[in-house]
């Protein structure tokens, strides 16, 4: 076996992470459009409802969360679609590196490119909805865990629908029922915090869910991609 072709799994994983990050940042519209959608639709909601401060701060967390999930669903198919188009995905599968690790790297890169920007603009939406600063901080923490868990679950959805064209809606359809616990704990923790209850239990649940999803999502995605490609 040729010495140069041997790349340690760790190195390969980091290389994949770096490559995917660069890929996302070279195509900014892929990141910005869902983000803009998130911002515009959420900011459009107050036009449709009663805008008293009490009402807004009460509905705000739930609305921001549901919009975050919706716009996140729009980005899921980017995980594999470009690599599938130009044939890179076949090489990734055929490489001698462990596929679940490479997929984990892709998921992390997707979260960096889609999740973190979404978290960064969420405080502005929080202010639009008249939320207090400490409530916004709680929202940011729930979004950090929540979007990462969504990336993990979404990777399963995107890889299952990999052999279908224009599968965005289908991916959301199959992932949304499974993602309900994230929505419940994400939004409800903020509302509870507003009424004076500690947000810790919500954080615990969301981080535990992340770990749980981390344990099966890369493997499920890897087997789905292998099935979808042959």
């Amino acid at each position, binding site marked *: 076996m040729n010495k140069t072709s041997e790349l340690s799994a760790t190195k390969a994983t980091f290389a994949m992470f770096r490559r995917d990050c660069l890929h996302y940042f070279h195509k900014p519209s892929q990141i910005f459009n869902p983000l803009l959608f998130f911002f515009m639709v959420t900011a459009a909601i107050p036009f449709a409802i009663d805008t008293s401060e009490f009402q807004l701060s009460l509905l705000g967390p739930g609305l921001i969360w549901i919009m975050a999930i919706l716009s996140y669903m729009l980005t899921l198919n980017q995980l594999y679609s470009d690599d599938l188009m130009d044939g890179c995905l076949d090489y990734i599968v055929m490489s001698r590196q462990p596929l679940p690790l490479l997929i984990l790297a892709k998921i992390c890169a997707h979260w960096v490119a889609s999740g973190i920007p979404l978290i960064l603009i969420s405080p502005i939406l929080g202010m639009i909805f008249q939320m207090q600063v400490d409530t916004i901080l709680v929202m940011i923490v729930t979004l950090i865990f929540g979007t990462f868990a969504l990336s993990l679950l979404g990777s399963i959805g995107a890889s*299952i629908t990999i*052999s279908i064209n224009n599968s965005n809606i289908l991916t959301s*359809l*199959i992932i949304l029922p*499974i993602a*309900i*616990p994230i929505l419940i704990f994400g939004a409800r923790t903020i509302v509870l915090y507003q009424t004076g209850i500690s947000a810790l239990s919500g954080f615990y649940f969301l981080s535990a869910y992340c770990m749980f999803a981390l344990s099966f999502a890369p493997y*499920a995605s890897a087997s789905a991609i292998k*099935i979808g490609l042959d």
Partner: protein
Amino acid sequence: MWLFFHKLASPKYFYSIATNFIPWLFVLGAILMFFGIINGLFFAPPDYQQGDAFRIIYVHVPSAYLSMMIYVLMAITSIVGLVWRIKLAHAVTVSAAPIGAWFTLLALITGSIWGRPMWGTWWEWGDPRLTSELLMLFLYLGYIALRAAIPDNNKADKLSSILILIGAINIPIIHFSVEWWTSLHQGSTLLKSGGPAIATSMLYPLLAMIFGLSIYFCGLLLTRIKAEVLNREKHTRWIKEMIRKDAK
């Protein structure tokens, strides 16, 4: 014992066994359901709190039970299909899904009809069972939608099995979080399950309905699997021979 299972996994053998079993299952299911319905609707005493409105449990409880059991069955056949690559297992998963979705819908509809006189609304978000049942329906529909979207049968089998398994390991979490969520609502817990122990004169018709509907489901499932097997194996020799024999 193992030999029997191996034989059963062959579509041809299964087909002939199913053909023999189906009439018996339908007859037995019909007898049990007849007994259950007649006793439940006419002879069981009315509930001291709910009056005659409780009688809808004779349809509601069995269909809610079956909606869960069918998903469990689909999870098991998905594992069997993925791990041992038994094609018949995939046929079972596909055939069970629409029936499961219908039972889930039936449970939801009867639940909300019952809720109208009891809670005063058709839909009560505070009830964890109703809400998890709705998410259950979404899981079934997602599976059916995915199945319908993949043209290649072999791929569709495996990919949708993965989805079923992911759903199955998440169902306890979904159920737990829905319960946590509804526990925050107020005033909706006036009718929890359990409550006063159910009288035997009410219980027997209920058990008869549960068994009857389960057996009816088995008959229905076998009929659907037969159709699925016919469709999948239509190019094999045994099917052609069977059709030729029937034509004579």
